[in-house]
């Protein structure tokens, strides 16, 4: 029989392992979501740079594709591990976040350049909030993208700002997703 200290150590080991498993699961799914968003955001910015007149249509398309992609990732993950990752509650949360973002853009009367800056900063804020609960990788990725976005907003005038955003936002999410897969 073991003593109370050994039992406490064993329970601490169990709790630590459970915490690591949960974080690993969150990272696995989030990395797939980030890779998808990275590609879509890159494509959205490049398309808006090439055909600025259709910018709004491209971004609506990005959000529709992203929603479909989230359900596809859920189906893939469920087939692989029997764990559901995206359901109606997550869809509703996602819609609330987007709706409030649209509300800010409309009532704030943002210019297209300000909107290009606002959306990544706004979404990355949620990444950083997630990081407080689920793991520091979210905070690092969110803070890096926000900082690079603001640097571009201040120092890169005109349309090249969209190229900058394709690289730092799209590329940042993609690289962040790859990094999270390895964490």
């Amino acid at each position, binding site marked *: *029989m*073991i*003593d*109370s200290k050994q*039992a*406490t150590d*064993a*329970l601490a*080991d*169990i709790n630590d*392992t*459970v915490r*690591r*498993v*949960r974080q*690993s*699961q969150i990272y696995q799914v989030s990395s797939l979501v980030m890779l998808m968003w990275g590609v879509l955001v890159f494509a959205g910015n490049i398309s808006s740079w090439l055909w600025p007149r259709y910018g709004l249509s491209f971004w609506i398309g990005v959000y529709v594709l992203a929603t479909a992609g989230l359900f596809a990732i859920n189906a893939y993950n469920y087939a692989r*591990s*029997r*764990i559901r990752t995206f359901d109606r509650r997550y869809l509703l949360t996602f819609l609330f976040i987007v709706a409030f973002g649209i509300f800010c853009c409309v009532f704030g009367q943002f210019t297209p350049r300000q909107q290009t800056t606002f959306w990544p900063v706004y979404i990355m804020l949620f990444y950083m909030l997630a990081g407080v609960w689920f793991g520091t990788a979210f905070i690092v990725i969110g803070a890096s993208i926000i900082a690079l976005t603001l640097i571009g907003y201040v120092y890169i005038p005109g349309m090249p700002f969209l190229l900058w955003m394709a690289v730092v936002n799209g590329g940042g999410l993609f690289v962040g997703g790859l990094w999270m897969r390895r964490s």
Partner: protein
Amino acid sequence: MAELDDIIHQPLRLKIMAALNALPAAAGLEFARLKKLTGATDGNLGAHIETLAKAGYVSVDKAFVGKKPQTTVTATATGRGAFARHVATLQEIIAGKQG
């Protein structure tokens, strides 16, 4: 009086069971992820999984994903029950009911 489960109590096997029990009932972990989570070596992890499998606490499924072999380890209902009893015993010891 509840007894500690000797098979589960070994430190690495305890981590393996804790990791598998953190998942929903039918979900398993791939060998590579289990190795990363427990910090064990291939050989060590394989040997302890075999011990748990012989006791009926885990099931091991081997499949090919593309051309790569993939081993998935899942806690059985027996294993989940044994782990729950083991944790309860640890909690009893801490509460001073035993030991």
